[in-house]
């Protein structure tokens, strides 16, 4: 589960690689081919791109000017007659068939394209085995999440994203540990702007451990407190390239990373130069990171999420340009919720241990079934058990 991605074993590799180059290279390139890049500064990448591109490439508005022959002639340095011809010679009509009535959903019979033959076979197989050929719920959900924000524009023009802004794609892994997730750990994908602060990302990460209510409430189930862990334990940190960015916005936030740093420095472990910084002072443009390399987000003291930055690119006209919607969630893993053991209908809200009335340990109950089984009409506790409020990881579905 955490075997494939080991965040605390990486600093060694980072130091060994980093020591050979004093300054991080400006153009991102692979450190391990096809796996991850070297360290580079995010803001510099944006600057480099902006330097090498033209205004028209970066623009986020619809292009106004028509690409007339004169503009073409100027751009290519060719004579005007050639420019006029080019439009006709290179038009898209040259690539399409003259038959207007083509249906893109039907595959032609006599095609020589291998791809089409394979696809046709797959479709025929589906028909034979009567597999329904519409997108299933999961696929529709995935597609909707990916594309729900495409092309959105803000109501308030002050919220419009600037040209040349960088868009980072982050995979944030869930801390759930199920056997079935051994090979592919579930994650959610978030889009973040370069100008956004780390704290904005921190606030957008929804983790079930934030909603936990601590304490045993078998004797007084009605008095389960309202405040959740999110309000009680506000400390958190990000770890990127040897620096711990701690959340210090509230007075009760502690420096969780101090434990790690003290441990690293205590014996000669070889993890030197770990630093701390304040999360709220940094934006993503200020960071120096590797693309494709796992980093860490820790909150609630010991709830750790692995974060991988999978992609950095310039914002495009077709993206969502409303700044208030970022960090934008575009992919979420659908976790099946645990249902009550009794009615198998409602999501579990209570979990019991050492319960003489329950068939297994631990056992999950919804609120109604829990009270019906464990308490009599007056509200007295029946039997021996320990009961804890339970928040299912699938709550965010």
């Amino acid at each position, binding site marked *: 589960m955490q075997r494939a991605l080991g965040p605390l074993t990486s600093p060694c590799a980072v130091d060994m690689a980093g020591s050979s180059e004093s300054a991080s290279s400006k153009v991102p390139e692979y450190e391990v081919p096809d796996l991850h890049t070297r360290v580079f500064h995010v803001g510099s990448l944006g600057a480099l791109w902006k330097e090498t591109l033209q205004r028209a490439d970066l623009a986020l508005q619809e292009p106004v000017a028509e690409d007339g022959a004169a503009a073409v002639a100027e751009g290519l340095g060719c004579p005007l007659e050639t*420019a006029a011809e080019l439009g006709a010679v290179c038009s898209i009509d040259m690539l399409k068939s003259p038959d207007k009535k083509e249906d893109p959903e039907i595959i032609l019979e006599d095609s020589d394209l*291998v791809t089409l033959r394979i696809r046709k076979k797959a479709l025929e197989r589906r028909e034979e085995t009567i597999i329904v050929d519409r997108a299933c719920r999961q696929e529709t959900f995935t597609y909707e999440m990916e594309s729900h924000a495409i*092309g959105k524009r803000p109501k308030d023009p002050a919220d419009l994203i600037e040209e040349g802004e960088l868009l980072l794609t982050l995979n944030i892994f869930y801390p759930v540990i199920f056997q079935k997730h051994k090979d592919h750990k579930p994650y959610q994908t978030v889009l973040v702007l370069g100008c956004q602060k780390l704290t904005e990302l921190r606030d957008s990460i929804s983790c079930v451990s934030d909603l936990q209510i601590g304490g045993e409430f078998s004797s007084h189930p009605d008095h389960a407190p309202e405040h959740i862990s999110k309000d009680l334990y506000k400390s958190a940190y990000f770890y990127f390239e040897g620096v711990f960015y701690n959340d210090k916005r509230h007075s009760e936030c502690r420096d969780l990373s101090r434990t790690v740093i003290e441990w690293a420095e205590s014996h000669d472990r070889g993890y030197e130069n770990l630093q701390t910084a304040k999360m709220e002072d940094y934006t993503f443009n200020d960071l120096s990171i590797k693309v494709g390399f796992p980093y860490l987000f820790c909150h609630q003291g010991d709830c750790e999420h692995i974060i991988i930055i999978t992609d950095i690119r310039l914002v495009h006209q077709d993206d969502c340009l409303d700044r208030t919607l970022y960090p934008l969630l575009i992919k979420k893993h659908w976790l099946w919720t645990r249902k009550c053991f009794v009615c198998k209908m409602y999501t579990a809200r209570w979990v019991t241990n050492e319960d003489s009335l329950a068939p297994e340990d631990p056992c999950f109950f919804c609120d109604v079934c829990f009270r019906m089984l464990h308490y009599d009409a007056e509200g007295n506790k029946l039997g021996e058990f320990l009961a804890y409020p339970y928040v299912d990881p699938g709550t965010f579905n």
Partner: protein
Amino acid sequence: MSLASGLQTDCEALLRSFLETDNVRFEVFSGLWRDRRFHTIFHGQTRPLEKNKFTQKALDLALRYFLPPYSFQIRVGALYLLYGLYSTQLCKPKQKIRIALKEWFEVQKFQQDLITAQHYDAAYIFRKLRLDKAFHFTAMPRLLSFRTKKKIRETELKEEFKELNNRVSRLITNDVLEEMMNVHDHYQKMKCLISTDKSQPDKALSLIKDEFVINIKNMILEYQHWQQDKMKFFAKGKESEEMTDKKEGGTSQDSESSERASALAKIKYKSYSAVAQASKSRRHRQVKLESSESGSDQGKMETPRCKRPRVKSQLTRKRNLLEIKGGINAIEKEDVTHNRGMPVITEEENSSEEDLPRPKRRRTR
């Protein structure tokens, strides 16, 4: 065959036929495209998610051919292919072409070359793609999610599309040679000046080989000729393969293949004429020389040919690693032993002849 490899087959077939036209005009390419009705490659998909994934894969594949080290014609073909795929895709909004920063510099250079060479249609198409905002300007070409367990899916792209890897001449350019000559002359003159006999340097001062600059130049020329011959041979080999496949008659075919057969026979004769004497313990496995008939050669040539593209690239790579020792014969012999099939052997000595040539090959590696 998976959909991805089917896609690769189709794209490569289109690029290969474009390569054969020996032309870089868009009209030629669009003619080939229309013949195959390539835009139908997107047909038959009803679900938007799979449409997006497929289109992204197709664009990614076409982009790989657009970047170096492929030859100029293939790169122009790939540009047209990108244009075609981008324009005829069925996804809304359109899937974009991802270009990384390090690739963008190459692309700009390419566009500049196109404009200076007056290939206006290709330059126009690139310009059009750019104005249509068909590109996503990224840090790295693909999304990286630290999949250590996933197999690297780098499918082998066509070696024959690649540009001749002329690292030797890139290292020792004409300027370098000229400078070397100048320095050498200057050095000789200096030696003469400080010697007692002003017309030639002292014997005590002769520390280097006097003709080494000329030797280097000759070696480079030899290497270049060899490389050109190799390419020609490869192209000829492919041609005659196609011709023999189609079973066409004609004297041209006969003369070509018999030419090749005689060349092969000559090379084989050279390498297999020397047979090692087996030790007393291996007497029973002593190799006896057999003369192979040229007819059977031809038959044999069909099968190892498919290995040739891969082998050629291995060899070019190795050649770059080897120091320039000269002696093309040595290189050719290696070439031969890897390329050719087994010599003709009689039934009884089947095992013995097979054993000995194979260990010999391994050693030359």
